[in-house]
């Protein structure tokens, strides 16, 4: 019973109890069973226990008084029954409330499907990411297929056990690398400041590489990401201090080559890599709105490889995912490999800017004549910016439309324009005439690109985007047609479902 109804009942019941005898007296009088006129309003009933017979004994015969007593008893019985029903409802409600506290919670919304225990100490969530792309290349001498492709197809299972242990399992069935396990890790999160993560996950170096796939501004990450590690197996200590003003991560990993879309589940050698990153957002928790979204940091890694072919990148790729640089046959990683990546972003209202610079310095050697070693320092940078035309806030974790797309209500979701400049330079010594580690007849030594795009966030789950990217190469002296022989012009589209 609602409190209002209950209050009403509480007012009515005493009125019934007090007023009923008077009403009955009035009815009796009206039927002419007594000659005395009875004014119902004048009948005074001081309390539940008082009777009309007591107060109006002169006006009511003993038989009538008895009848009234009987009726009063009936009213009291009814009152008790109502009170009992009311109490039962109250107890049922209490039981339901108590039961709800122990019942598992089932939730399905834009964030996915979550099933958790009542105390949320145990939870399992099902998420997913599907990206259906098209790539159309222009002026490529039909060298590259224009195609629809399933870029990513990931069922994602994540959750928590025993309150403090998070887990994530993410396979990927999309792309050209076959089915693979991308993420499989356990994170112990007793305190946000001190967490331990173990398994397979992104190595903590590149800012753009660490950005979650559904939130990237363009279909493909920039040339910068060519020089940082992708997912790796290892153990990492990480955390957020002062409410996220300082984020840190440091771990020991198997070690992987510069960005490789095909991840592995084991180690190619006996050596280990150390990777770490610190990122500062000093104004994140302050009231300075214009600086809250300013963050800067540096990531880096260090490892040693000994005569390891797998320690070298399978190739640096363009925006259109075409290889423009590969090491020559017989070249292996042999010695130290370190990376450093100063990075930062700035988000304020609809504006978003992200910038990153990477040095990937690697010692390599030739295992075929002419034998020799070299320390090659490859570098890349990018700067990208975006503006949400519909006014929503831009962020590192995407754009949430203020009003989901619904033509019936005149809402069009969120629209964002994005642009990017980027460049990757391979060390000149790689193309040495006397001791070549890469061949200018097969690879370019530099790629420089710009891109513009338009992103349409229909709602939190569905996004459509299109972009055009143009990449210029230098240092290529090979035959044509070939990827680095002419500029790459590619038009992307994407339909993305993420939940």
């Amino acid at each position, binding site marked *: 019973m609602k409190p209002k109804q209950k209050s009403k009942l509480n007012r009515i019941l005493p009125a019934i109890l007090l007023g009923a005898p008077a009403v009955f007296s009035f009815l009796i009088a009206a039927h002419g069973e007594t000659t005395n006129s009875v004014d119902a309003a004048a009948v005074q009933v001081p309390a539940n*226990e008082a009777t009309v017979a007591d107060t109006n004994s002169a006006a009511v015969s003993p038989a009538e008084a008895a009848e009234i007593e009987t009726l009063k008893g009936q009213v009291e019985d009814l009152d*008790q029954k109502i*009170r*009992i029903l*009311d*109490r*039962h409802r*109250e*107890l049922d409600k209490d039981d339901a409330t108590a039961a709800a506290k122990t019942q598992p919670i089932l939730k399905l919304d834009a964030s996915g499907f979550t099933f958790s225990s009542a105390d949320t100490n145990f939870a399992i969530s099902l998420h997913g990411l599907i990206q259906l792309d098209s790539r159309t290349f222009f002026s490529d001498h039909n060298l590259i297929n224009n195609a629809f492709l399933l870029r990513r197809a990931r069922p994602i299972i994540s959750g928590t056990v025993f309150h403090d242990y998070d887990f994530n399992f993410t396979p990927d069935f999309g792309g050209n690398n076959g089915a693979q396990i991308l993420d499989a890790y356990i994170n112990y999160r007793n305190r946000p400041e001190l967490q331990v993560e173990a398994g397979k996950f992104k190595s903590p170096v590149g800012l753009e590489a660490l950005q979650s796939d559904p939130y990237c501004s363009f279909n493909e990450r920039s040339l910068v990401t060519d020089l940082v590690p992708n997912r790796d197996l290892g153990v990492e200590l990480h955390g957020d201090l002062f409410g996220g003003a300082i984020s840190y991560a440091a771990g020991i990993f198997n070690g992987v080559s510069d960005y490789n879309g095909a991840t592995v589940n084991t180690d190619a050698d006996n050596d280990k890599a150390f990777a770490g990153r610190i990122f500062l957002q000093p104004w994140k928790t302050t009231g300075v709105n214009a600086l809250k979204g300013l963050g800067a940091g540096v990531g880096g890694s260090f490892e040693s490889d000994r005569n390891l072919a797998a320690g070298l990148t399978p190739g640096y790729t363009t925006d259109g995912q075409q290889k423009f640089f590969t090491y020559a046959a017989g070249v292996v990683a042999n010695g130290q490999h370190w990376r450093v990546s100063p990075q930062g972003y700035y988000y304020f209202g609809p504006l978003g800017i992200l910038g990153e610079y990477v040095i990937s310095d690697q010692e390599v050697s030739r295992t075929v004549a002419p034998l020799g070693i070299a320390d090659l320092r490859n570098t890349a940078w990018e700067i990208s910016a975006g503006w949400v035309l519909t006014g929503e806030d831009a962020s590192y974790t995407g754009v949430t439309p203020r009003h989901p797309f619904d033509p019936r209500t005149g809402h069009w979701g969120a629209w964002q324009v994005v642009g990017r400049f980027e460049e990757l330079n391979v060390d000149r010594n790689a193309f040495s005439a006397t001791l070549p580690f890469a061949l200018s007849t097969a690879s370019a030594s530099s790629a420089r690109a710009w891109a513009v795009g338009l992103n349409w966030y229909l709602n939190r789950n569905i996004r459509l985007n299109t972009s055009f990217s143009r990449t210029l190469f230098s240092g290529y002296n090979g035959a044509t047609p070939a990827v680095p022989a002419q500029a790459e012009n590619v038009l992307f589209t994407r339909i993305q479902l993420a939940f």
Partner: protein
Amino acid sequence: MKTVLKILLPLVVTLAVTAGAKEVTLLNVSYDPTRELYQEYNTAFVKYWKARTGDDVVISQSHGGSGKQAQSVINGLEADVVTLALAYDIDAISQKADLLSADWQKRLPDNSTPYTSTIVFLVRKGNPKHIKDWDDVIRPGVSVVVPNPKTSGGARWAYLAAYAYALEKYGHDDAKARDFVKQLYKNVPVLDSGARGSTVTFAQRGIGDVLLAWENEAHLALKEFGADQFEIVTPSLSILAEPPVAVVDKVAKRHGTLAVARGYLDYLYSDEGQEIAAKNFYRPRNQAIAAKYAANFSQLKLVTLDQEFGSWTKAQATHFADGGVFDQIYQP
């Protein structure tokens, strides 16, 4: 030099004492009507423990139907001590969760029951239904409020008190005694899960003619709602209710609170602990204090559980287990 020492010495001593002192948190999982008792007792114990050890104790209380509370501890509620309505509930914690040894009741005097109580009747002022004894409670037309014996310790004591009366009345004819309590529960319109809920049903919701209540709960109702609202009726016979206390060893060890938990329960037997119990209408074990507060407690024949029903294990299996006598006689 002496002046410097005079200043520094107290400072050093204070710092040393402060550095040695610690704050300890204790959870007492108790049954429904003991809120007021332990609120007062906790204040006294905190002072006592601070004076004795220098440590600050923060005591949290949890209250509910005794059976429900025991189940919560079994399910993981981290009680350092339990102060429940009956021994069977602590036995269940020992047997089902193995959180304390089976001989827990031998650790403290009087079978680890520092105070006792009994079941009395609370009726509306003037006793309009003329309820004097158990025979009046089973009369048709008398509405009885009592909690559910499946979840409430007090309700189990009330049930057994009625049963014991019937056994005495009918010369230990069990069939007649069973019929007697069946008549009683026919008169029960609402079964709350705990004693405090039944008090609310009777006193605040205005349901029923008589509340079968813990003696201390009945007195508390008089204090809270006024003697002009209710009166206590003492039946000719009732049961000696023995609410036991115990340290939940494994939890207390894990929390590092074993010493303070033991001290907490030991202090219940102290003169101050017994006084607080008596002031809150629990019958103290200390005879001198019991005599001092004799006016708080009616004189009546009290039978014990062991006399009439053998043991809690037996009583539980016969009467309150699924399919037991209560399930057979009670039709909601």
